[in-house]
Structure formats: structure tokens, C-alpha cells
């Protein structure tokens, strides 16, 4: 299990999954706070965040379905097979891989794992090349296609290039503390 305090893990579990209630549940305003009824009917089709859906699924209260982009026959799969590097995964799910890892054992879909692996392998190469060659810190266009995990890798790549340059060229060793970096002095 990932770190309890890990921000990304917390946010990855916030992703929405489609689910169907298998039995009625007595809880006030779960789906809509303005809803006055006290009950969710059995067979109600709802969208639940992963953290709620997981435990309810394990206990048989709801049946979880995979989100559209993980389905066996879906546009996303076809696009990934065609040209993984230029698929907008961020628009589908910011935590594409993390969610995939979490959901695969839950629904018992054996095809999700290899699918994720293929997607990551092809995209990783592209991310790495771009991270090491991109000239400036200005956010390039393709960054909007990357999922959160890939964006982190991209940043790490850029940082290491910057660190390498600094090591080769030398730079000022004494600097103001980075927490003060964005400080603006009052205009006199």
C-alpha cells in the first residue's frame, strides 16, 4: 500500500467510477445534497469515487464497472495501439496508471495490466527524449497530454538536465532560500 499521506495516492482514489447498487442503502444525500430522499435504491446506476467504490464492491453492496477508457473494446485502446505517444491520457484520467493498477485486481480484468504496460513503454520513451532536449522551462504543448505520473517523470528529466548543466558550467553556490524566491518587495 502506498504511503497514507501521499497526496497523489489520495487524489488518485478520488477518480470517479461507474457503479451499480446491488442492494438498497440508507444514506442521506450521498449523490445529491439537495436530494431529500433518504435512500439509494437497489439497481441504481451511480458514479462513485474509487475510495468508496472499492470497499463497497468488496462487501458486495455495489458492482463496480471499469471507466470507459479501460474497457476491452474502447477508443482509448485503439488509439494506444495506433500511436500511444500522442493520446491525450490526461483528459481521460489524470492518474491513468495508478487507477489502472488499483482497479485491475478489483474487477479481475487481466487485460488491463499488459495494456498499461504497452501504453507506458511507448510513451515513456517519448517523454524522456523530450524532457532532455526541451530548451526552456516554458510548458510545451505535449505536456497537456501527459498523465500526472508522466509529468513527474518529465520534470525529473528536466531537473537532471539542469543539474548536469549547472555541474558542468558551475554556478553560484550561495543562494537565497527557495521559500523566499517568490517574494516581491514592496515598491518604494
Amino acid at each position, binding site marked *: 500500500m502506498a504511503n*497514507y*499521506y*501521499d*497526496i*497523489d495516492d*489520495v*487524489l488518485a482514489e*478520488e477518480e470517479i467510477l461507474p457503479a451499480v447498487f446491488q*442492494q*438498497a*442503502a*440508507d*444514506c*442521506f444525500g*450521498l*449523490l445529491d445534497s439537495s436530494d431529500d430522499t433518504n*435512500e439509494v435504491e437497489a439497481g441504481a446506476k451511480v458514479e462513485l*469515487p474509487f*475510495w*468508496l467504490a472499492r*470497499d*463497497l464492491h468488496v*462487501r458486495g*453492496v455495489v458492482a463496480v464497472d471499469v471507466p470507459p477508457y479501460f474497457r476491452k473494446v474502447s477508443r482509448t485502446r485503439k488509439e494506444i495501439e495506433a500511436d500511444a505517444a500522442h493520446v491525450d491520457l490526461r483528459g481521460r484520467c489524470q492518474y491513468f496508471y495508478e487507477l489502472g493498477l488499483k482497479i485491475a485486481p478489483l474487477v479481475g480484468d487481466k487485460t488491463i495490466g499488459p495494456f498499461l504496460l504497452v501504453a507506458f513503454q511507448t510513451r515513456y520513451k517519448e517523454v524522456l527524449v523530450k524532457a532532455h532536449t526541451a530548451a526552456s522551462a516554458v510548458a510545451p504543448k505535449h505536456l497537456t497530454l501527459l498523465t500526472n505520473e508522466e509529468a513527474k517523470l518529465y520534470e525529473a528529466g528536466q531537473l537532471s538536465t539542469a543539474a548536469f548543466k549547472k555541474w558542468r558550467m558551475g554556478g*553560484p*553556490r*550561495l*543562494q*537565497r*532560500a*527557495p*521559500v*523566499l524566491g*517568490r*517574494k*516581491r*518587495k514592496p*515598491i*518604494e
Partner: protein
Amino acid sequence: MYGKKGSELVKELASSEPGQLSAFNNDLFAQVIDECTGHLHHLGSLIRKIEELKKIEEIKKLNNQELEESEKQLLKAHNSGALIHHLSLLRNKRCLMAYVYNRAETIRSLGWAVERVLPEEIEEKLSGSEKEYFKNHAASLQSYMSELDLDLAVDMVPPKDPYIKVRVLEDIGNVLLSDQSANLARHAILFLRRTDAEQYISQAIFTLMLWYSCIIICPRSQYNVSWFTGLNGRADWLNQVIMVLSGQEWLQLMLYLFVQICFLGE
């Protein structure tokens, strides 16, 4: 939807730059806690209902009867409802804990960067308990260092020269340093012991002087030249900007100053 506010809190943390603190979101924090209280309330009432039904079940069992179908359904519904509230509580707890924990981590790293005193603009972003936490953490760091008799916050690379040239950015008056008493007036250029100067540099009171900083004496440099650096021009911009100029920008700067001196200078 349950747990939305908690995740908003964490999202706020995720969207801020790493290492930077944003103001403690008291408002949202209190809202999440309110939501928790609400969940607890619902959970309590559901559990009471479940217990009542269980009692009925036991009584009926003694009479060799079973619960009616509708009652069974109700029990199930209560059970799953209670479960949902329980999970929401756990989730909100996790969001709150993650928020506080990650901020505390940043605050701990402040202890290394700025030593004992927090600048005002950072201090106002902390909550009361965070201020206390920082104070205690800084104090224990200090006591550890004094126990070791070693300042662990200094630069890891040994200096080539024990003295460095710095320029003062803020007026702080007379200060007693380890080998001299210096008047730290704004814009004064001083030659100080590196160990003395280091803490002031990290607090952004000094700036390190490099050889090309001598251009500052050029009177035209006080003009706003933000059009070519893209940064806010200020009287003390030169020292700060030069440190981040790349080769091409440096050329531009030289050209600009050259033009200024040749054609505009008196």
C-alpha cells in the same frame, strides 16, 4: 457527493509549487471537520437503528421466528448506509491528515533554510499550531547543532576564500559579526566572512557580488529595462537579474548599457 471538500483541500496542496507554502485554508479545513461531524451523527443514528433491529431478531429467534423480508431489507440498507458513512469518515480523516502532514514537512525544511526567525510573509500563512511546531523544530535543531558544536546549515562545499563580497539589500543597521561590527545599510558593499554572510544570503538580506556587478555604478542602469529581461525593473534589479542571465541575454544587456552610455549619457 461525500468527501469532495476533503479532496479539494488536498488538491490545493498538490497544485501549489513544491517547497512553497500557501496560506493555511482554515475555512475549508473547518468545513471538512463539519462534514465529519455530520457523518458521525448519521452513523450514530444508523447504528442505533441496526441495534434495534438486531434486538427484534433475537426476540423472534427465541420464538423460533425469523425476521420478515422487509425488515431484512431494512437491516441490509442500514448496514450499507453505515458503511458508507464510516468510509467517508475515514476518507476525510485521510485528507485532513495528508494536508497537515505535507505542510508540516515543508515547515520542517524551513528550519534548515531560514533558521530561527520566519519572515513575516511566510509566518502569516501558518496556522497557530504550525507556528508552534516550527518554533519547537527550529529550537531542537539549534540545540542539536550546539551539542555537536557544528553548524549544519552551512554550504557543504568548502570555500576557496573565507571572505566574500556581498551587497546589502535591506537596512538592518549595526550588527556585531564574528570578527567585526558592520553597518548593514542598504546598498552597502561589504567584504565579510563567508560564515557570517551565509545566513543573511539565505534570508535574502545580502546578495552575492560577482565581478560584473560593478556595472551598477552606471547611472542609467536605474532605469526600468524590463522590456528586455521580462522581469520587473527595480533599482536593485541588476544584481538579481544578472545571476540568471544566459549568454545571449548578457550580450543584450551589455549592448543596451553601451547604447545608453554612448548616446544618452551626459
